[in-house]
């Protein structure tokens, strides 16, 4: 006698081979939109970024303009405006720069750095991981040994040494640098995913139907590795913000007259006792921004977690 009870035809059957991942993506999106904390983080992040880019047009102080008014005694008044004084909502630094205007500018620069670095890291990481995981053997060995070598030196040190060769590195250069040396982790993750995915039936079926390698990678494998890529992307964005502050603090990142959130807190450290607002406000803004990005990443991870629709029998 043989197994008797017919398997239940529950759950939606994927219509096309790649359809599985698309519907998975849609479901993950629905779960994400319905989860309160990641959505709140998302809204907060978007609001801060929009404010940073739009508000400067309506704000009376510019980030590179010194408040040069004089008081009754003929002294420059702005040299040490506390938060709320003299029309500076968050005060000024010792030179007379408005802190809020500088925080807008700093956030703008950080957003640019994050966008550039994350785009580059994702592009290189996915390409390298895909090549290594899909074509295997020679390419795989070469790439993975290269990654091994890259990972044996602390990333921050690589960044410091490379950045020290380009003293005039601005925000854009810094973003490039962070991206160029930040893809190694992702390439390993993508490679591992591809190694597992390419053994799966839908890839073999696509092969059998005569799909090109290019098509299989882009239509079948990358969509299935999407959760890994998205989660890495958000975590990397968070790491980029923190790395920018570290590099700038050590003197290899953004330099005056431009500014960034990292530069603001680096300059604020010295004034932590005399003008604490310079130290704490930008620091808390970075903390909240990175926190928001991490929470978004956590939300994406949860949304893709297969345990969400697991049912005990």
């Amino acid at each position, binding site marked *: 006698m043989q197994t008797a009870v017919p398997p239940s035809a529950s759950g939606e059957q994927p219509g096309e081979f790649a359809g599985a991942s698309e519907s998975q993506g849609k479901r993950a999106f629905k779960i994400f939109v319905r989860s309160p904390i990641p959505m709140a983080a998302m809204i907060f992040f978007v609001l801060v970024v929009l404010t940073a880019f739009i508000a400067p047009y309506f704000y009376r102080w510019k980030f590179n303009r010194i408040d040069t008014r004089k008081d009754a005694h003929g002294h420059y008044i702005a040299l040490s405006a506390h938060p709320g004084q003299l029309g500076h909502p968050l005060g000024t630094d010792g030179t007379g720069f408005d802190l809020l205007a500088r925080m807008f500018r700093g956030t703008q620069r950080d957003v640019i750095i994050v966008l550039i670095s994350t785009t580059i890291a994702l592009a290189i990481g996915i390409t390298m991981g895909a090549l290594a995981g899909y074509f295997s053997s020679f390419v795989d060995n070469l790439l993975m040994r290269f990654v091994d070598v890259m990972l*044996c030196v602390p*990333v921050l040190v690589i960044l410091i*040494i490379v950045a020290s060769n380009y003293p005039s590195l601005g925000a854009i250069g810094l973003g490039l640098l962070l991206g160029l040396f930040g893809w190694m982790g992702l390439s390993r993750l993508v490679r591992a995913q591809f190694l597992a995915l390419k053994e799966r039936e839908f890839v073999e079926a696509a092969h059998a139907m005569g799909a090109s390698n290019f098509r299989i990678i882009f239509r079948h494998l990358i969509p299935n590795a999407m959760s890994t890529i998205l989660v890495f992307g958000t975590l990397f964005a968070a790491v980029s913000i*923190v790395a920018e502050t570290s590099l700038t603090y050590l003197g290899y990142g953004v330099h005056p007259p431009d500014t960034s959130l990292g530069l603001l807190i680096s300059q604020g*450290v010295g004034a932590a006792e005399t003008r604490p607002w310079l*130290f704490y406000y930008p*620091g808390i803004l970075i903390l909240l921004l990175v926190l928001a990005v991490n929470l978004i990443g956590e939300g994406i991870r949860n949304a893709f977690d297969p345990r969400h629709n697991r049912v005990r029998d």
Partner: protein
Amino acid sequence: MLIYTVRRLVSSVLVLLVASFIVFMFAAASYDPLKPLRSRNPPPTPQSLKLAAHQAHLDQPVLTRYWNWLRHMIGWDGSFPFLKLNFGNDVHNASVSHALGMRLEVTTRMIVGAILLAVILAVVLGVISGVRKDKAFDAVATIFTFVLLALPTFWFAAVLKEFAIKINNDVGSRVFFTAGTQSFGAPPPTSFFSVNSDQLQHILLPVVSLGLLTASGWIRYQRASVIDVLDSDYMRLARAKGVRNRTVIRRHGLRNALIPLVTVMAIDIGALFGGAIITEQVYDWHGMGEYLNTAIGNEDTYAVAGWVMVSAVFVVVFNLLADLVYAVLDPRIRLS
């Protein structure tokens, strides 16, 4: 186990060899050790410039310089099999390896302390939050770790320092030491393992600031792996044998849940080294970070190359240690 260890060792050495080539070539190409000399006023004579170039081996082809550097580094200069780890001399004609040795000791104290603190926090908080998932303790620990995860390294270190100074001022005596590795005039440590209360007081804040930031990711990771393990069939079978729940978690859960943490720890060692550079700067420690900053400022090829090699060896050694711990914990790795 032996074969596994040897294989890991060989591949580590190969990786280091390739890394040394890249590092040296890069350092040689980008730095000009004669720059400080040239910018002097009055300008130095061509002879003295030539002499300095000869001292810095700049008159040789770059591949020869690399080979000589490598030769002395690995002891292929007659001292074999004893590694001299000679990284050459810096721009002031002082031994790079001697200076790095002292500074590495300082930095290693901080890193080892931070790792210990982070491991303890990761295991304790991670296991409790994993076991009590979605309870009050877990919620508090989760908020705590997410905030830590979002803190810029030096800002957190500086905030801790500010608080410490504030407390010192309020109490009126020095409770926390916020700068340096030891009090001025105190006897220097006799060995790496010697500790006195003065050093412990100095190391407290750096270790806490570096350790907490490192722990943040590890706690999350340990929690996730505990949740995974608690859900596994072998935990259920162990309970079905009649083993008490608490014992099952200790005996079967903990060991299995530690396996993924060990791999993450290995990956994070590099980040820890980077974090140590920044923490050193905030707390005025004369460690590896300060040396690197000076070396880069001096455009000192040998100092920078030696520095990067030391950090690479450090990372590789810790990776190897993690691999061995991994193999001890997981027989599937050991025996395959």
